[in-house]
């Protein structure tokens, strides 16, 4: 009797826990909430614009020639996205430490996260801890002068492979 009850009870307990876990999952409508298309001809050099994708802030920073030089020197061109003849930094604007939004300082061309003092340069590579890595790059696909966020184009897949960004 005791064993039979134990067996039935544990099946019931597992099933209940499973249902509870699934209830806490994000809803399909949240998961599906989609794609953001950016028109890259609209941005200006060294002027940070914050877009929105899946509720998260996305930083877009068009690189001035001087900033491209900097990126070349630091071997960080690989973090930038080339559209036409221009280079763009497109990243999720949430600190890789604990998720605050770092602020951009155009005169110093860097980002400062006020929460715990992390810093990033103009390609969003980390220059001062605690953040463990540069800002993450969202999945993107270049389409002429447009960039679609949420779709994984070949350039993005290559970045993932080379370990330049982690999946978000």
């Amino acid at each position, binding site marked *: 009797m005791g064993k039979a009850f134990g067996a039935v009870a544990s099946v019931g307990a597992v099933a209940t826990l499973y249902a509870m876990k699934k209830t806490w999952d*994000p809803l399909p409508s949240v998961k599906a909430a989609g794609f953001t298309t950016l028109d890259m001809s609209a941005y200006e050099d060294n002027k940070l614009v914050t877009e929105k994708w899946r*509720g*998260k802030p996305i930083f877009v920073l068009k690189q001035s020639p001087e900033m491209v030089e900097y990126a070349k020197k630091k071997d960080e061109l690989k973090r930038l996205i080339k559209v036409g003849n221009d280079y763009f930094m497109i990243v999720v604007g*949430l600190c890789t430490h604990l998720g*605050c939004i*770092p602020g951009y300082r155009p005169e110093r061309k860097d980002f400062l996260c*006020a929460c715990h003092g992390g810093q990033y340069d103009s390609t969003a590579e980390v220059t001062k801890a*605690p953040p463990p890595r540069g800002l993450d790059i969202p999945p993107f696909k270049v389409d002429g002068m447009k960039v679609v966020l949420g779709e994984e184009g070949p350039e993005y897949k290559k970045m993932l492979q080379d370990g330049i960004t982690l999946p978000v």
Partner: protein
Amino acid sequence: MAHFEKATSLHDWLNQRLAIDTLRRVLATEYWIPKNINFLWAMGMVLAITFGMLLISGIFLLMYYQPNVDLAFDSVNYTIMKEVEFGWLWRHVHGVAASVVFLIIYIHMFTGIYYGSYKKGRELIWISGMLLFVTFSAEAFSGYMLPWGQMSYWAGMVITNLFSLGDLHLNGLVEWIRGDYVPGQAFLNRFFMLHVLLLPLVIIALIGLHFGTLRIPHVNNQEGEEIDFDEEAAKYKAGKKKEAKVIAFANDFLAKDMFVVSIFLIFFFYLVFYHYEFAMDPVNFDPADPLKTPEHIYPEWYFLWSYEILRPFSTNVGLIAFGFAQVIFFLLPFLDRSPNAKPAHKRGLFFYWFWALVIDMIVLTAMGKLPPEGIFSTIGLYAALTFIGLWIILPIITKMEKEVKE
């Protein structure tokens, strides 16, 4: 069917059905409290009363609060504060109580540490107390989300991100906790559920457990003296009240407890009416904005010390240090290797350890509030290392302690 007599009074009627006399004897008139204690032993009762005030003020706030990302902020800051008559009173009682309850919890904890009240049969009292501390922390955090201001949102963001556990990169877990990629409606709703139902239920159950664990060991006393409660109770019941080392919980001891509670309540309502602003962060009077982080974010004062242990390190080390700070107090009864359940001033090195811990936690608290720059970062780092170091040397210095004879 058991046998029942015709009742002679309401009391007798209840007594036959509920054994109220026995209940009263076991829980109150024959539950023994040592005489040799001081006002610090009233903190438990102060906590129980404060929890009662949180419950009552919370129920009234619930009548107009709206757990919806578009409405929550106004339902608190406009409807409750401006429209509902005496709405401000419930909100200020609730906010001040949530802050003050932690002050009392810390006093209660450090009283326990000072007098060695976690040793020799009192381990479970300590552990159930720590469970209460953790659950109250979760309760305060979930409550802080509800007004959906800037601090609510960004504290929610940062604290849930802790669960990605640094380089383990468990984004899936974080999104599961939030029910979304970022804190949103799903997040607010589930924290509302936790705050008003699940966690209060757990707290009530834990308070029951905490009282249960006190029953057999009884409370400690100022000298850590081992009292034979049966013998002393017999003296007391035989009328030798002067000689007995104990008094009955009710009504004798309760009267003293309530005296301390009254003083506390005067202080408490002084804060509620004249100084509530310390419990209300000004940044949280801006509605949540997912596209803008406030200049400085810091938790409420009672979380600052553990926040400061997280902050000076890189992500992974910081998380490990933070995890350490969260669990280490649970292990106190086992890390203290000394045979003495005595007050700290009779225990040699442990006395200095105690005050070093208190001062270090105050320094951590102060640094946690200041921006993480320059000298503050450095002091914070050393204070965090000191915290960890103190716990590492605890087993060693307590092992060296000589047994104190009566």
